[in-house]
């Protein structure tokens, strides 16, 4: 009998899920341990976190508000990942979308049923515009999209702050912090939860279908897995990269539109609240599957929501980042460990072949 630990090439989804659940539990256990070590009562905090996230109506509403942008930015990063491209600029496209929507909302008076779709269209167009140059550079000149999309985030963030405290600042209060309140808003469906939430859900489900069940999705999968094989099969890889990146920019921008028109109702600096970057975390957790974006975004939203609760208990805001990092770290380890299985093989009971004889074949 010979037993050993061996790496399997493939992992069943159930097995991976089990390992990941274990990873999240471990991460939470470590968090609890450190909270206890710093003199807090983990049980009290845990109770508080549960009660104010999933244990109460307000908590659930907040969770949905966090989930809405995370679904969209997570999907934005996931779709580009499927063709082997990393859109690190969801944060910037989020801002661009918010700016585009605010421009219409502030300066185009009209009924909500007309203005809201225009805001969305304008926001999406701005987000696509924001990623257009990196996308063209990536598709046709091979310029690394990670750098270009990332750097444009800072430009977008600063542009937003400039508009909010400069030309578009609130004339009513005169405070140099944000634009005035938008005259239209996305209608709420449940407490503070607006229509953006179900729309984001539907969009993610549609993307999951689009990426796995259509010819376009297949072409993208092949293009992402092996660009040379895609060219060999006559798939227009450049056009697909361009298309996917534009779609990604539009998705992130839509998150910005929802945030400004549904949740915050005014444009202000820091509006994106790192949702673009957390979208990368969601995409990493989702492992390229749009369907997985749903649970991944839910986990992320829960952590963000819990972070707010912890901050009310005089914990630093960096704790959220630390917990996020810990969860990611543990999941990365679990994903790798899931490949290993103890294997026992019984040597076949075959008579040993005589060897080493110098014979004539």
């Amino acid at each position, binding site marked *: 009998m010979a037993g050993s630990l061996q790496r*399997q090439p493939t992992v069943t989804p159930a097995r991976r899920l089990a390992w990941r659940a274990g990873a999240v539990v471990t991460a939470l256990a470590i968090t609890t341990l450190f909270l206890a070590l710093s003199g807090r009562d983990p049980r009290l905090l845990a109770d508080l976190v549960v009660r104010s996230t999933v244990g109460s109506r307000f908590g659930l509403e907040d969770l949905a508000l966090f989930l809405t942008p995370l679904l969209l930015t997570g999907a934005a990063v996931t779709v580009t990942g499927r063709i082997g491209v990393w859109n690190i600029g969801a944060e910037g496209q989020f801002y661009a979308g918010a700016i585009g929507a605010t421009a219409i909302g502030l300066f185009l008076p009209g009924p909500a049923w007309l203005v809201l779709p225009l805001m969305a269209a304008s926001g999406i167009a701005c987000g696509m515009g924001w990623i257009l140059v990196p996308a063209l550079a990536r598709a046709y000149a091979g310029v690394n999209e990670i750098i270009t999309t990332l750097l444009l985030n800072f430009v977008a963030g600063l542009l937003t702050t400039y508009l909010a405290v400069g030309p578009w600042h609130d004339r009513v209060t005169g405070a140099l912090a944000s634009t005035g309140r938008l005259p239209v808003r996305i209608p709420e469906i449940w407490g503070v939860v607006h229509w953006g939430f179900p729309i984001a859900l539907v969009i993610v489900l549609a993307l999951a279908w689009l990426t796995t*069940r259509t*010819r376009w999705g297949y072409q993208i999968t*092949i293009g992402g*897995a092996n660009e040379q*094989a895609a060219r060999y*099969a006559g798939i227009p890889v450049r056009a697909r990269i361009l298309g996917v990146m534009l779609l990604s920019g539009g998705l992130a921008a839509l998150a910005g539109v929802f945030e400004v028109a549904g949740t915050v109702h005014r444009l202000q600096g820091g509006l994106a609240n790192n949702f673009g970057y957390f979208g990368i975390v969601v995409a990493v957790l989702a492992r390229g599957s749009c369907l997985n974006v749903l649970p991944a975004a839910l986990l992320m939203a829960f952590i963000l929501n819990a972070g707010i609760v912890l901050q009310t208990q005089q914990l630093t805001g960096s704790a959220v980042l630390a917990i996020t990092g810990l969860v990611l770290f543990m999941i990365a380890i679990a994903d790798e460990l899931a490949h290993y299985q103890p294997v026992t093989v019984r040597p076949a009971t075959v008579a040993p*072949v005589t*060897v080493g004889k110098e014979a004539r074949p």
Partner: protein
Amino acid sequence: MTDLPHARNDVPPPIPPGTPPILQLQGICKYFPGVIANQDVSLDIAPGEIHALLGENGAGKSTLMNVVTGIYQPDGGEIILDGYGQVFAAPQDAIRAGIGMVHQHFKLVPAFTVAENIHLGWRDTPFLASSKVLEARTRALSERFGFSVRPDAIVADLSAGEQQRVEILRVLARQARLLILDEPTAVLTPAETRDLFRALRAFRAQGNAVILISHKLDEVIDISDRISILRAGRNVGTYRTADCTAAGLATTMVGREIVRRDLRARAPGATPIAPTPVLSLRGATCRDPRGVETLRDVTLDLHGGEILGIAGVAGNGQRELTQVLTGMMPLSAGEILLDGTPAPLADPAAFARAGIGHIPEDRLRSGLAPALDITDNMALREYDRPPIGRHGLYDRTAANHLAQTIVEAAEVRVPDLATPIRNLSGGNQQRLVARREIRIASRVLVAAYPSRGLDIGAIATVLRYLTELRDQGVAVVLVSEDLEELLNVADRIGVLFHGRLMATIDAATADMETIGLLMGGRSAHNGTPHGGSIPDGPTQDGGQA
């Protein structure tokens, strides 16, 4: 192991009697889930010998060598080095013990220079190492071991043969006494192969040993002193090379008699050669990005029901020719005619729809998406047509059906269709690609080196695919570096030299010598250099990629 042949006076240099083997394996076993990779393998490698390891794909050669080099730990058996038992916990232990392996796929850093690659991860590398120092050290090593390399060259710019020299030098620099080479000649031109063998013999003359894994029987007989044959994970025998014949080895290797039939003979009822060509090139010329002509004024006709062989030293325009014929590369001049009318712009999808299949040269890099499952890979050519592609959709069920059909036609056993295709062996990947392309090749099949890296059984299967296709009236282009294969299978043979089609000759009357002369750039009749007008031919190696 009982009787060890201690005195070996048939191999240079004479080894004093009683010298223990450099390496002795006793009853090595290695198991993978559901697979016995090695079962009770015993083997001894004497100092001063070149020991060839033969076996079909999947016979357990690579696993055994991974055990010897410390990549795997054996599940049973012993490794004895110079008479002392050894346990290699990691590859570093094996390197320290003087065992060096050169893998089939080179493990070099392409962006680094030769000198940097040689010194990477080496304990003897000076702590403060300027590139000048490294290059000087590399030059010294290169002279000491007789492997000429350019120390300051970037590895990515080197041909496969040059990269291999760097790999070997890297291993030798770490004081290897036992050199393991996995399919070393698969990527080499004949001239490079000769150089390699010369260097291996010099290495042997110093009392070192070489284990050579190869499929090419003639080479093995040429270079080795003894031959061990693995079959289904077991050592079925070790023989003195002087006692072996290629046919005998082949039989032992596959465990059955190989039937060599004249593959040019048509099966009864086969479609005759079509009078009008299906695909033609007229003055086809290609230029690479540097403006060098890689294909020069090639004119040829492909007729249904015949196999056109393309011979030539690798890098003389074969890649360009296959890519032009399959719509992957646009022409700089000339035209390509499909059924007598100019073919559309270079569009591989349109060519595929027109019934032109393509077994590409490097299947893992350009014919498959290694990380994706078998289904997605098998759908690559038919995803855009019913039943898989309808109304812009991708029907997974239909794709699974297609994959199942191809897998069955290729007679490949797979665990399930969701397995990533990179987990299959090279031979199985090749069969699947061949079957996938044959399905769409209703008019033309372009097969580039379809037998490269395959064992004899798999080669026979793939060649059978080609002849069956020919009998169905399809035009087949077979690019190969194996002249025997071309002479066996092809009806006509075209020879490429410096991108020029030197001649197209009738395979039935062709002889090796004529083709050899043409491959060297001499025309068959008077032996004068044909390529004399070419000012500066393209590099002859793979460097024009």
